């Protein structure tokens, strides 16, 4: 069943019928399993991986304006019985925050934040994030360019270099 999750993570468009044929399982079983995963939260959401830089370049109509992203490292004073969890979830609930990880190294939490502009992200950090209780310091790294995200490298697909018919 792990195979089905991996396939969906790569291409959420695959129909239950195709998934069933691919993995040699009855389609009813696949449909029931996917529904169960959706209900239990194993499958959280189906999304598209968007290359915002490309969107901005192609559309030229401000489509890429959402593309300001920053990694923000946060040092947190842990508290008895909850550790970092309460602060981490408090940060995670902001819609601007795309991801929050507890990490090893110089800081405790690593967050990804997106905003319409550098100013918007800066304001979020100074007004919301750094003023949360037990947040001791933050370090903000603005993303200059995304080369790969969610397992997808943002490069043009090579055309098929193979000859059309070969032995």
């Amino acid at each position, binding site marked *: 069943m792990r195979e089905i999750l991996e*396939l969906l993570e790569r291409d959420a468009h695959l129909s239950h019928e195709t998934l069933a044929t*691919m*993995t040699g399982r009855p389609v009813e079983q696949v449909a029931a399993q996917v529904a169960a995963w959706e209900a239990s939260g194993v499958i959280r959401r189906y999304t598209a991986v968007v290359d915002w830089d490309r969107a901005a370049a192609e559309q030229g109509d401000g489509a890429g304006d959402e593309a300001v992203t920053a990694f923000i490292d946060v040092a947190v004073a842990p508290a008895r019985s909850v550790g970092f969890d309460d602060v981490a979830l408090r940060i995670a609930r902001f819609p601007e925050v795309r991801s929050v990880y507890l990490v090893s190294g110089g800081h405790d939490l690593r967050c990804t934040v997106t905003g319409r502009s550098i100013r918007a992200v800066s304001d979020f950090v100074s007004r919301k994030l750094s003023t949360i209780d037990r947040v001791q310091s933050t370090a903000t790294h603005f993303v200059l360019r995304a080369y790969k995200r969610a397992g997808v490298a943002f490069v043009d697909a*090579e055309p098929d270099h*193979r*000859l*059309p*018919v070969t*032995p």
Partner: protein
Amino acid sequence: MRKLNEVVAACPPSGIRRFFDIAAEMDDVISLGVGEPDFATPWRVREAGIFALERGFTTYTGNAGLPKLRRLVCDDLAARYGAHYAWDGECLITTGVSEGLDLALRVLLNPGDEVIVPEPCYVAYEPCVRFAGGVPVRVATRAEDGFAVDAAAVAAAVTPRTKAVLLGSPANPTGAVQPRAALEALVRLAQEHDLYLVSDEIYDRLTYVGAHTCLGALPGARERTVVLGGFSKSHAMTGWRVGWICAPAPVAELCVRVHQYTMLCAPHVSQLAAVEALEHADDDVAAMVADYDRRRRVFVAGLRDLGLACPEPTGAFYAFPSIRGTGLSSAAFAEGLLHSQHVAVVPGDVFGPSGEGHVRCSYATALPLLQEALERIGRFLAGL
């Protein structure tokens, strides 16, 4: 001008060529006619090749190939299939299996020696036998038997001039994997008549049902078997041109002798990339094989839904459905499909007379394209 070489001049050009010319003219063609992976070589292997270029490994290697690569090839064969060859003396790195096949036949054959070739089979087998001075003798295999080689049929074709049997498994174009019992019967026959066995195992890693049997690992086979393998299909390395021969020392030694004068060595950079492939790319291979398997299931089910009988292909990346129900010849089916629906397949008779009534479809193609191709084939069938 005086006449050119008669053997070469008498050899017909590959029947695949004509379809290539037509398909190359079309811009929206979906080609199921490609005999190579649609994946690029795994990045770690390409990166190793780049590093080798940067370091300046642009020279010849020893004739037999890099010792490290030969060790890895032999260790891999032993670990995977229990086939044991000495890296120094029984293993040679070739410029792809194509060269390996040519070397093996040149070394085994004297003029007029017969080589039994079960067909349908890879298009190069018969020409390579002829170029080596031999005479190919076809033995039919049948879809009803899963294209398994029937030792009795092979025995019936044996004459005093028979020198060897040439077999590919898993097979291009059928996708068939020879059952172990069929191979064992073939080995007994070879012992009985003192025949060599040439085993093309380029698709060894691409099996989806059961495990691959290396012919060189079967009892009694080793001393009379030449095993050919490589990286083209398993590691998506067709353009690197790197393969190997494992054979008993007297055969391997003569293979090196021809190779040292005609090829000198396999490309150095490709050999270093192959080292990386054997050392670190097993996960990449497993991912590609899993992907082929999923496409295989979808594509074969799709063909059957369209009413085409399709023997279960258990290896390589080809389906070989029967098109007899349409009343068309393989060539007429392939041409009609290409012209009316812009889907390229290869007519089965290109691979031998027993391939007539079938077409070869490669599923080394992205899934959405396979699904689109199935729809187009359905429209073609409906319009007949």
